[in-house]
């Protein structure tokens, strides 16, 4: 946060470079190129939800660069847009690099106009230049630079074309020409508000006045720190007066006039030759959004995922790693080695039933690693094609039933990757109500990749009817929780407005980088928890606590759900990591201790089981203690109810 104490002169503060622009224009690619740090890059809006910081390679003195969530307007319409605007309000910037989608210049210029109004030095980077050329779009960059008064450069960031120019352009950044005038009565109101704003701000008073006049309520907190009580009162009066005088909403009116101004610039610099579209990509886009073919396409995607993640990742690869690599090569050697000189108690710690090597590492590296790897590869390809946002088109009507709209499918699908990351992504949803409902659904029943892989692998070994029971049950419980949540949680549903990126051919290199970065994250986060869980189990077992818990949980686990007592330990570690729990069930099943009925019941229960530690903490962070605890309880109840229901359904079948 910016330090408001006076005496800190602008000259000796650390000055940042801020990357900013519309969603899905390549900010994160440029961030990675400038810093050498990989930020997750995908082909859909909202990939960057948290601000990323890095240092520009080779900058002297060291310059910090900030990657921000995409915005369509500097008057924020959602939580992630507010984050970006607040950075401009609070971080002294040496330069702003505005990244633009060259083929979508109009929307970029809507932001440029606002940056010019703020009087912050900036550079306009027209990225995706290749796509603009493909569409026979030409832009007179020299003229554009002259009209805006800032450097304009063209790049194709994914091919590193032109990106070296960005580094040099930073020094040439300057405040843009602020030539935009609004109609007379707006200007008068602006002046009146500006007169009430006193002090030094990082952005111009005019731009703050524009935000206030647009009715930007997210500025309230900032205002209470930066204006006197009387000042706020008179600002409110000016805004009230103005909004009474105008026939239209002021924010809308201001946007309209800005866009009209932008059209004036476009007319001078932008040419488009009509009649072009890429047939292949166009056809794919059509199919994925078709009411019938779209669903078939979705089924196909799911099937490919099942084959690649379930059969190959969780089947073939796990088989090899678990049974051959660890089972025959590594573990026997380790067991022999440990047993040869350690007393039994101590060697048990390493290679016993709950041993560090025989359980923690075998589970983490032999079972889960190949699954998440194959999932991340598959998911990365899916992300980069631009398919995910198109899912919203097909699913909008279904989500309306539970008080959400199609946009909600994005965090839900991401939840198949990792529930904790997906919970963060709920920020792309507009209303608090939607964020809560999706958070509940994620916690209750969206299985994460590793868990899903294990489940797929287990279910593929038994008749298909069991798979259908599992799937139907999860779907039913999710639908039910959604319907209940939308009835209980007050508020109205938000509009469905989703930007669809073009269908693109994924780039190998990005998939590799993305997978590597996610694997690294997985190893860092999951392995310590696997170790912790194993150590916990080891001590609970040796001290007899495990037996006690199993005994205490017996009425529920054995009585209600009809499962073997040993599954209790899978549920205990399931709280550390769900996939760990699922892997535990896998080994119980492989040990021949469960019937198919029991297996499916236990899988439904673990899928619906409480969120894992990481997921739980993120939920607390995003939603607060109370809601998170409530969500925890709800998923516990859902798990037991779901398990019981499954058991009864299977008895009937």
């Amino acid at each position: 946060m910016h330090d408001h104490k006076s005496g800190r002169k602008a000259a000796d503060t650390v000055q940042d470079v801020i990357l900013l622009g519309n969603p899905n224009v390549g900010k994160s690619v440029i961030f990675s190129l400038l810093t050498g740090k990989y930020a997750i890059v995908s082909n859909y809006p909202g990939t960057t939800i948290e601000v990323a910081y890095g240092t520009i390679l080779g900058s002297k003195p060291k310059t910090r660069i900030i990657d921000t969530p995409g915005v369509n307007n500097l008057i924020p319409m959602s939580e992630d847009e507010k984050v970006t605007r607040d950075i401009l309000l609070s971080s002294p910037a040496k330069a702003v690099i505005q990244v633009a989608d060259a083929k979508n210049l109009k929307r970029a210029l809507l932001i440029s106009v606002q940056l010019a109004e703020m009087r912050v030095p900036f550079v306009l980077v027209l990225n995706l230049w290749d796509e603009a050329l493909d569409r026979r779009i030409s832009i007179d960059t020299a003229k554009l630079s002259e009209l805006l008064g800032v450097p304009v450069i063209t790049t194709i960031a994914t091919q590193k074309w032109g990106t070296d120019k960005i580094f040099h352009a930073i020094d040439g950044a300057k405040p843009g020409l602020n030539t935009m005038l609004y109609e007379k009565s707006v200007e008068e109101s602006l002046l009146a508000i500006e007169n009430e704003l006193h002090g030094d701000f990082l952005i111009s008073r005019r731009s703050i006045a524009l935000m206030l006049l647009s009715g930007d309520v997210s500025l309230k907190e900032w205002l209470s720190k930066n204006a006197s009580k009387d000042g706020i009162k008179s600002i409110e009066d000016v805004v009230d007066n103005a909004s009474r005088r105008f026939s239209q909403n002021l924010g809308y009116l201001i946007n309209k006039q800005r866009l009209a101004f932008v059209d004036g610039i476009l007319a001078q610099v932008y040419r488009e030759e009509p009649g072009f579209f890429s047939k292949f990509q166009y056809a794919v886009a059509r199919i994925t959004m078709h009411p019938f073919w779209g669903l078939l396409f979705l089924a196909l995607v799911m099937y490919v995922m099942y084959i690649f993640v379930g059969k190959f990742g969780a089947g073939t690869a796990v088989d090899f790693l678990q049974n051959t690599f660890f089972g025959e090569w590594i573990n026997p050697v380790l067991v022999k080695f440990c047993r040869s000189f350690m007393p039994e108690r101590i060697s048990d710690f390493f290679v016993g039933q709950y041993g560090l090597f025989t359980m923690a590492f075998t589970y983490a590296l032999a079972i889960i690693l190949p699954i998440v790897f194959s999932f991340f590869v598959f998911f990365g390809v899916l992300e980069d094609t631009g398919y995910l946002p198109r899912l919203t088109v097909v699913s909008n009507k279904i989500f309306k039933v539970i008080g959400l709209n199609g946009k909600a499918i994005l965090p839900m699908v991401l939840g198949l990757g990792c529930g904790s990351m997906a919970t963060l992504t709920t920020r792309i949803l507009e209303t608090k109500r939607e964020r809560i409902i999706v958070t509940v659904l994620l916690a209750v029943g969206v299985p994460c990749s590793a868990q899903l892989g294990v489940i797929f692998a287990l279910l593929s070994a038994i008749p298909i009817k069991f798979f259908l029971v599992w799937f139907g049950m999860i779907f039913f419980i999710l639908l039910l929780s959604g319907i209940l949540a939308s009835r209980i949680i007050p508020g109205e549903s938000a509009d469905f407005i989703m930007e669809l990126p073009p269908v693109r051919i994924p780039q190998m290199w990005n998939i590799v980088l993305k997978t590597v970065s996610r694997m690294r994250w997985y190893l860092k986060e999951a392995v310590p928890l696997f170790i912790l869980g194993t150590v916990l189990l080891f001590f609970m077992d040796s001290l007899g606590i495990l037996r006690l818990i199993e005994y205490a949980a017996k009425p529920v686990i054995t009585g209600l759900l009809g499962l073997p007592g040993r599954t209790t330990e899978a549920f205990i570690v399931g709280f550390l990591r769900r996939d760990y729990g699922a892997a535990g069930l896998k080994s119980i099943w492989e040990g021949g201790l469960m019937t198919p009925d029991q297996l499916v019941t236990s899988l439904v229960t673990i899928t619906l089981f409480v969120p894992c530690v990481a997921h739980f903490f993120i939920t607390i962070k995003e939603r607060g203690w109370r809601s998170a605890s409530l969500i925890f309880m709800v998923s516990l109840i859902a798990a037991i109810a779901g398990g019981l229901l499954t058991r009864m359904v299977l008895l009937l079948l």
Partner: protein
Amino acid sequence: MKKEKIDEALELLWMIMEEGNLNKVEISTLPDHMGCFDPELIEKVGKRDTIAAVNEAEKAGYVVIENGRAGYTLSGESRARDIIRRHRLAERLLSDALALPESEIEPGACKFEHILTEGVTDSVCSFLGHPPMCPHNKPIPRGKCCERFSSEIQPLVIRLKDAEIGVFYKIIFMSSKNTHRLQKISGLGLVPGSSIKVLQRKPSFVVQTGETILAIDDEIVDEIYVKNESGKK
């Protein structure tokens, strides 16, 4: 002149009742300038011009006043509805079709409301595609023309949901009550004057503006009114 004053009074009562969801209005609380009562004129003729006008309306049989509260008679209500309809259609005509600056719309509409005949009013309504809301997002009372499907007047403006697929249209206006929604879609480049093309209707509406492709709710599509940009496909 007297007739116009009565119209003004009926209009004022309508606006207050609409806002507060009332069917009677306390006369003593009538504001001095609202609707078409010109603030500058009030300075000249004295403060309580509005009350005088309501009294005139009572004399003419359009209003009943009981215990200091005024309500419409049957004929008064129908007359008031027509005035409001003319006034708000005129606002739409001046702001959307003729794109006059803000400062000329209100005074213009205040004059139009007295002179349009029913036939002309219906023509304007059809021409604008039977808009449900005025630019202030107040409902425009429906006329006979709105219920008829066929119309001799070829509408200049149609709803986006009735637009042909794959043809470019120009947005004329958006009649949304939801200001958040308006600000949001305008940030994506959808404002009056933008070109827009429908790509598909089902399972969700997908539209294109410039190089931006958007999936949007049917109810938002319902609020967008467009005009054919002839020849551009």
